[in-house]
């Protein structure tokens, strides 16, 4: 099963990569950006293997992306991490540390029939792998939760050009301000998990090798973890408002919603995050 998955994933990425290479031969080089950002939001996590309760709280996020895009194609490698101290309905003072790290690759192609100078529609795929470390000391030997969730997702992005095409002057109280022509975009990206995999704790959650420190970090983290495929779901949505500056850089305000259920072999992990981010995009020379 594992090999089928890897072959499928490799073929998909290889296929996309080949197509991109052909694109790059026939078209000028696409603008590229380094994106650095941060934000905060509300995280909600429940691991039914150890608790029927949701743990909720504020979580902070940082993200670092490399994006190459134009009207026809968009590619991005991205990294983000989320960290928060979450509590449940009854134990408000307990410590339950959540750390999640996402690594991903997004690739989108324009659908010409659904695009015009004002609206641009792209579809493609998003491969995302998320690794979570959760620490809740009240669970004793089950204090450390560790899992990986990997999803191959169908992606669709709609971008609306909301540029200011004419300079204008506005008056705020006694002051006048001139607003220059500015390129601006409002975009909405939706990712739906097609192939959902996870690497989760086994039936009893924690095993003897995992509590013996002498066995090394790998045994501590992975003892009796189970790999599961075609299991669970993931939905990710992102709304971006991007303003381009005269020097080619840009600023971006985003609302990101990410939710998944990693059903695993035994009991599921459920996660949802609503976050607001601010990012700066530096044009890559």
């Amino acid at each position: 099963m594992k090999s089928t998955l890897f072959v499928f994933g490799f073929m998909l990425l290889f296929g996309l990569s080949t197509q991109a290479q052909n694109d790059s031969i026939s078209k000028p080089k696409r603008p590229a950006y380094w994106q650095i950002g941060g934000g905060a939001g509300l995280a909600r996590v429940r691991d039914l293997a150890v608790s029927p309760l949701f743990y909720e709280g504020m979580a902070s996020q940082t993200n670092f992306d490399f994006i190459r895009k134009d009207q026809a194609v968009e590619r991005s490698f991205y990294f983000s991490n989320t960290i928060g101290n979450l509590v449940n309905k009854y134990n408000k003072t307990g410590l339950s540390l959540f750390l999640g790290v996402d690594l991903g690759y997004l690739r989108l192609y324009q659908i010409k029939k659904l695009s015009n100078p004002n609206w641009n529609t792209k579809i493609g795929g998003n491969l995302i792998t998320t690794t979570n470390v959760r620490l809740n000391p009240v669970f004793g030997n089950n204090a450390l939760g560790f899992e990986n969730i990997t999803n191959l997702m169908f992606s669709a992005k709609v971008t609306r050009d909301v540029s200011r095409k004419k300079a204008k002057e506005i008056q705020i109280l006694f002051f006048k301000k001139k607003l220059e022509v500015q390129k601006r975009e409002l975009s909405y990206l939706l990712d739906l998990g097609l192939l959902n995999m996870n690497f989760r704790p086994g039936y009893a959650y924690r095993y003897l090798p995992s509590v013996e420190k002498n066995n090394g970090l790998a045994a501590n983290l992975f003892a009796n973890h189970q790999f599961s495929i075609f299991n669970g779901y993931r939905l990710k949505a992102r709304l971006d408002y991007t303003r381009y500056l005269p020097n080619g850089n840009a600023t971006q305000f985003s609302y990101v919603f990410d939710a998944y259920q990693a059903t695993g072999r035994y009991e599921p992990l459920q996660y949802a995050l609503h976050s607001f981010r601010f990012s700066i995009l530096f044009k890559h020379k």
Partner: protein
Amino acid sequence: MTQRIILFLILFLFASCEKLLFEPDKATTDTLANFEYLWNEIDKKYSYFELKKINWDEVRTRYRARLASSPTTNETFFKLLGDMMNELRDDHTNLISPFNVQIYNVALKHKPNFNWRTVQEHYLKEPYFTASFAHDFLANKQIGYIRYGSFMGGFDNTSLDFIINRYSGTRGLILDLRENGGGSLDYVIQILSRFVSTKTLVCYNRTRNGKGRNDFGAYEPFYITPSSSRAKYLKPVMVLVDRGSYSATTFFALATKALPMMVLVGDTTGGGGGMPNGGELPNGWIYRFSISQVSDLDKNIYAENGVPADIPAEFDWTNLQKDEIIERAIQEILK
């Protein structure tokens, strides 16, 4: 304006989207829901139903009837769940609420065999206290005595080196683990690694892996590997145990059965061979219980009920100037 409306609609849609995706929050203080949750968790994962001949279905019937027949406050409900967990006769089984902790306390159900005052007053003339160990020479420096009161007590290899080197010229050691209620398995491994010269299989472990009460994974071998380039002691070691020797100490005691130079002296250990795993009830109370079995080299799982001493001995509480168990260990080393 249209753009703003679209923006707000999207935000509103996803603001509560996970409520559509996930099952509802199961948080509740309903007593029956919490009772059923706990009973089911134990049913799915507890590891010693068969060894202890526990009819868990009958326990459910009995305690459900008790729940239905009496009015419940938080405290009476805690007592009811605690009593139900005590049917497992297992000190690795606990229920923890903001106002109380349920404990089975196997040691209190048996005669005590340790009095630290007796040891301090009549055996330790010039004791050293190194990390979590108290130690001294006995019997004209022919024997080293080491007291380790809890496997929660930290130490490092330098401390162990000092102790092992200090008693390297003795004929034997007494390692006193009476009333040692357990702690970290790492310390078990760290100490035992000083008493073996080759990698030694000492026991097996297997863990529940299915809903059937006798569903277990494969036996996993547990080895002790000698501590490389560190001080070792390969002469006789008398390990003193009693019913208060629980959990990691029972694990240690079981491991000695595979090590010919180590001899258990005293009473049967308290048990606690399973690894306790924790979880949470819908009302926020915390529980834990054993999910694995430890077995000897013949794959017998008696350790949960206690590892019997190789040389039984009892403390005589009518004479507090003498520790009969230490005396018996001295006799065994000097014979």
